């Protein structure tokens, strides 16, 4: 690797996770540089969320490791998590808390105090368009708003690395558009990994796509390169080809 390469913010090195005899993630290695938006694709159960959980040091890898901004997620996990904005699958939040209270809690944990805390929370609310529901308990919000609360929490500290597990799941087309615009807007300064089922999203926001099936990486290329892998030139067909081995897409 040469020196003029862009700054690598996420490094994944032989990451493996086994649950008993089942191997969920099998020797996965890749790295993501600043400015990249990596689309993480794969069928349900392919190991996307498991990989992201290990990246967020929520799951302990069976072998291999990952580094975020040079911090090992196992040996230096608090430093790794400080540099990380993470949206867990399903965007869990405390249901009884109001949006502002929840975000203030996360900001306090991240060490912000006083006016900076207020600014951070206000900024995150602005970015995700939550102004109208600021004081509502999260449990009263629609699925789309809940997802945005989770997103606001991940963006709060303007982290250099963002790992978002299905950030647009449950959003309506307008909201999807907004979130994608937001991701594109932030992309130049960050390394971003998003997992998704929506293949058009890969075209819309990703600079690179990794397809994972049965815990292994089966493709790692730009969306344009991926599309060339099937005669039809459609990402849907490429996805089917890569993950099932079947050429005949519907």
């Amino acid at each position, binding site marked *: 690797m040469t020196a003029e390469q862009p700054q690598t913010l996420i490094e994944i090195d032989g990451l493996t996770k086994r649950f008993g005899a089942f191997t969920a993630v099998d020797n996965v290695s890749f790295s993501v540089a600043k400015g990249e938006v990596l689309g993480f694709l794969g069928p349900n159960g392919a190991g996307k969320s498991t990989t992201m959980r290990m990246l967020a040091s*929520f799951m302990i890898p069976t072998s291999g490791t990952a580094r975020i901004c040079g911090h090992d997620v196992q040996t230096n996990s608090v*430093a790794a*998590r400080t540099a990380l904005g993470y949206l867990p699958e399903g965007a869990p939040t*405390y249901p009884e808390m109001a949006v502002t209270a929840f975000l203030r*809690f996360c900001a*306090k*944990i991240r060490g912000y105090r006083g006016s900076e805390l207020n600014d951070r929370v206000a900024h995150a609310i602005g970015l995700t368009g939550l102004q109208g529901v600021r004081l509502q308990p999260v449990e009263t919000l629609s699925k789309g708003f809940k997802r945005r609360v*989770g997103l606001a*929490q991940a963006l709060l500290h303007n982290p250099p690395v963002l790992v978002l597990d299905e950030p647009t799941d449950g959003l309506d087309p307008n909201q999807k558009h907004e979130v994608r615009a937001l991701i594109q807007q932030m992309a130049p300064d960050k390394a971003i990994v998003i997992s998704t089922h929506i293949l058009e999203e890969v075209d819309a926001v990703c600079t690179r796509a990794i397809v994972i099936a049965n815990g292994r990486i089966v493709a790692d290329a730009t969306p344009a390169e991926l599309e060339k892998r099937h005669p039809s030139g459609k990402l849907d067909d490429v996805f089917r080809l890569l993950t099932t081995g079947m050429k005949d897409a519907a």
Partner: protein
Amino acid sequence: MRKILTIADRELAAYFATPVATVFIVIFLVLQGTLTFNLGNFFDRDQADLNPFFTFIPWVFLLLIPAITMRLWAEERRLGTIELLLTLPITQWQAVLGKFIAAWLFCGIALLLTFPFVLTVNFLGNPDNGVIASGYVGSMLIAGAFLAVGSAMSAATRNQVIAFVLAVAICFIFTVASYSLVTDFLSKNTPVLAEVARRLAVLDRFQNFTRGLIAARDIVYFATFIGFWLFVNTVLVEQRKAD
């Protein structure tokens, strides 16, 4: 430390955001009142002390404290928020301690609300308020001990009912360990264990406090007991967080 207090603050607010707090405090006060005044013969004894009150505290706590702790970790698992909480830049130890402190403060609030007992006994006679204060210190410590056990059990399983039953069972064993029924049986069969049981028993230590005896070794005992179970709790969270 700030992170621990931030977690404790959120947890404590969560108790009061749901009916859990009200239900717990009301049931606790009603139970303590009924037991002290009726079963404990508070008035007929003609004694200006709170002995009947403190006699029932461990038993009421044995039932109610696992009801608070059963949800501590199981609820985070059910909601999926455990993944959010533990991917924030905190250590598991800070999360465990924050939750424990919140639950302990909550028990402290419930105990503070028993002040009418103290007023009543002071109105009716001249009790030794030092002994009463020492009894309250003991009550807080036994609450802390049960909370630490319950919190660890909540981390051990995602099922709240199992967490509750396990916590009651373990707290019960530590409570009755010094009963002659237990120690007699043990000394007949395994004399070594009888001595161990006597030393590990929560109730004997607590009774020292209700007699007005605050001994360093009892405080060390409770601190060790709580520390041990919080350690178990941390290990269980680490091992089972993603299950």
